[in-house]
């Protein structure tokens, strides 16, 4: 009897499993249709508080919040453009410290509350207030990089943002364009916990549904006239595994997926469902020389020849010739890349005349011989360790290992050491990572100084400045950086100094310059969409093709 019951139950279960695919259910996973654009991202937003944008969950919430919140100006779709958004124009005080943005009339937030200069000022002050404990891009990066002091509403439509000192205009405008504007009354009424899960936005889309761990669905805000809304619904699916996301693209369930593994481009193209795009990105990939005299590897082992050798400019220059970036890009990243001459993106306002160091291992060896580091009996000149992380794309382990091998080939025995991300970041920030480290840093297309800001001037500590991870202590550069703000009124002189600084960086390199990006993006054949070189995805600009 028991056996029969067990058998019957098992049969029922098997039957249910077999029939289930043919039956319909109330809830479904969103798929693309004429009104719906589906975008896959690997990360998942933790908090949707606009002041917590780009926090510890990476930038996944930033990508989404660019659709639910507007900014005063916006990093444009076109390369290098910064376009008016909530503000139609701005004026700058004579001393360059006060920027007044003139906002459009008749703006509102999702809940109907009028959006005025008071709200814009509140947004800046709220994210910058240390008492609120926000981290991430706005609170951590914009505040520090612009020297933000305060924001105030001068009138209903004029908001003034005050900084400690002047700054390159494009850079400051770009940074202010990363601060998401939200309505004061709505957010004052919410606790931090409520603000993390609820969105009262100011952008072209509002939050319709958030299923944690699965997807977030946005709906076009009626009457929002400042940006296009190509689709009525935008769905952001959180797919952590890149191969799975590619499978969803191939089966037509995802329209846009940025940063797919290059090795899967062929599968995407062959599917006939999507384009596999490759293009230069803004993220700069490099090998850093840690020049910190107090770094543990130098203090604990003062006789380490390699750690001492890289303190010399001629050695650092020699190593530039050892890396074949063309081979790396063509064979490992399956695309072509332009080798950088400095820390500024080639597509940004890079140095106009400098030529990238060519791949010339013979010259590298010759220079190392001349510097007094000949090969020993074992063929080794000196040894170096190169900590790295296991990431994807240009930071993939195979890229790291290839560069280590190229250095080893010229007698600089280089060991790539893959570390847990937290350890790597902690050592990087405290300038203890090295002697070499394989790194990357975000960049822009709209201001050379944005890219140069990694290494600020004497006022910020020069070699000891927080983001100067190599501890490069170059007086010309640091003095130049401190001088740049005074030249904002004279763009020609400002540019001239930028160029001289980039030349200094080239001649006394704290990095082995590699390349920017490259980026990949799978885009469904059914849509028109312009890929962006930076990290963002502007889904609002995508439209359905006419013949679809």
């Amino acid at each position, binding site marked *: 009897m028991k056996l029969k019951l067990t058998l019957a139950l098992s049969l029922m*279960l098997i039957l249910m499993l077999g029939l289930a695919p043919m039956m319909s*259910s*109330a809830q479904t996973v969103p798929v693309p249709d004429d009104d719906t654009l589906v975008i896959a991202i690997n990360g*998942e937003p933790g908090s949707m508080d606009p002041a*917590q944008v780009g926090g*510890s969950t990476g930038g996944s919430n930033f990508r989404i919040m660019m659709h639910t919140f507007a900014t005063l100006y916006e990093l444009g779709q076109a390369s290098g453009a910064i376009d008016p958004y909530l503000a139609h124009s701005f004026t700058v005080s004579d001393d360059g410290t006060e920027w007044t943005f003139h906002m459009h009339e008749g703006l509102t937030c999702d809940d109907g509350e009028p959006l005025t200069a008071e709200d814009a000022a509140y947004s800046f002050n709220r994210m910058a207030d240390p008492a609120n404990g926000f981290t991430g891009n706005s609170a951590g*990066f914009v505040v520090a990089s612009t020297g933000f002091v305060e924001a105030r509403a001068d009138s209903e439509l004029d908001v003034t943002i005050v900084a400690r000192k002047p700054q390159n205009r494009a850079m400051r405008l770009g940074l202010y364009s990363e601060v998401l504007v939200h309505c004061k009354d709505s957010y004052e009424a919410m606790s931090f916990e409520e603000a993390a899960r609820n969105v009262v936005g100011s952008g072209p889309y509002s939050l319709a549904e958030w299923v944690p*761990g699965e997807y977030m669905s946005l709906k076009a805000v009626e009457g929002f006239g400042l940006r296009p809304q190509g689709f009525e619904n935008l769905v952001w699916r959180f797919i952590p595994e890149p191969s799975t996301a590619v499978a969803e693209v191939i089966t037509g369930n995802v329209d846009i997926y940025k940063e797919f593994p290059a090795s899967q481009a062929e599968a995407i193209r062959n599917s006939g469902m999507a384009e596999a795009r490759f293009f230069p990105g803004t993220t700069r990939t490099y090998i850093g020389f840690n020049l910190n005299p107090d770094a543990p590897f130098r203090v604990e082992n003062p006789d380490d020849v390699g750690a001492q050798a890289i303190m010399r400019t001629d050695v650092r220059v020699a190593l530039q010739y050892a890396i074949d970036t063309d081979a790396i890009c063509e064979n490992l990243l399956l695309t072509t890349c332009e080798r950088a001459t400095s820390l500024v993106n080639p597509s940004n306002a890079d140095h106009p005349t400098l030529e990238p160091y060519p791949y010339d291992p013979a010259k590298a060896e010759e220079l190392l011989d001349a510097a007094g580091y000949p090969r020993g009996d074992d063929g080794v000149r000196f040894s170096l360790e190169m900590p790295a992380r296991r990431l994807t794309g240009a930071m993939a382990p195979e890229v790291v290992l290839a560069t280590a091998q190229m250095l080893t080939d010229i007698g600089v025995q280089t060991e790539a050491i893959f570390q847990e991300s937290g350890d790597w970041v902690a050592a990087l920030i405290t300038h203890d990572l090295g002697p070499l480290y394989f790194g990357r840093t975000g960049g822009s297309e709209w201001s050379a100084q944005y890219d140069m800001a990694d290494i600020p001037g004497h006022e910020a500590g020069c070699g000891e400045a927080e983001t100067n991870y190599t501890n490069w202590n170059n007086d010309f550069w640091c003095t130049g950086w401190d001088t740049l703000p005074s030249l904002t009124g004279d763009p020609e002189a400002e540019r001239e100094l930028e160029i001289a600084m980039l030349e200094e960086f080239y001649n006394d390199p704290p990095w082995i310059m590699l390349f920017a990006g490259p980026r990949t993006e799978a885009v469904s054949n059914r849509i028109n969409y312009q890929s962006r070189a930076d990290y963002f995805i502007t889904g609002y600009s995508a439209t359905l093709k006419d013949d679809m």
Partner: protein
Amino acid sequence: MHTYIIRRLLLTVVVVLGVTLLTFLSIHLAGDPTFFYVSERASAEERAEARRRLGFDRPLHVQYFDFLFNLARGDTGNSLTHRVPAFDVVMERMPATLELTIGGFLLSTIVAFPIGVLAATRRGTMADGTLMLGAMLGQSMPGFWLGLMLILFFGVTLRWMPVSGHVAFLKPLFEGRIDEALTNLPGAIRYLLMPMVAVSVYSISRNSRLIRSAVLEVLRQDYVVTARAKGLTERTVMMRHAIRNALIPIVTVLALQFAFLLNGVIVVETVFSWPGVGRLVFDAVSQRDVPLVLTAVVLLSFLFVSANLIADLMYGFLDPRIRLE
């Protein structure tokens, strides 16, 4: 019996505390979590301020006992990344993990049992060899690889199954929305099928080999020979004497298997974009979200220990000679 249960429950508390302590120490030994919650441009002073604000400046034992004290009051603190109570974040994902674990458990049990019994009763035949070869292959396949292969074949090539995603069944059920749960059931099963197979193949293989051994062991016992000598049919011998007696070691392993499946879902949840606790913990560990990791570990270890307790209690039911004292 009651004394035994109370003793085991007290032991459960000790085990959960031990697990939280180990987790707490390992997450802190891996580096200062503060670095995940400050900008790369933060100065040393700003980092110190963030460390103070997050409470990481206090001695480790103070941090740990604070967590335990708050846990006793039902307060697990806010997730550092989600900025909402960690308990809510974990419980939001728990139903999806239970769907996958229970589904995988049922599938592995239902499939492994006939395979093991069949292989035992056909010992030394081609059927036995084929089934055990299949079991060995199943045990050798990593869940991650198998998941991707299932996606490639059934999702991409044949287009029979959805590639990834999830339709909720247990969550609306737990929240009392029974109609919604029942309406969702077909979709839930459809999305569950491939992850369930991926998570259970290893268990099916292991269990079928174990069941085969247990049944073979029992078939050699005197009482089975006696039963056959009495003229009972082979079916009666198997069902009434052999299988029931073989169940005791099998139940032990099945209970542990449930716990094993809880661990295994981390990889499968990632491959199939399944919104469960495994994936959440993986992300939380990467982001050093200490309150979230500890809360998830407390809840998962409680489930783990409970599964073992249930197995122990079942011994008494399966074999009346065993007294739980």
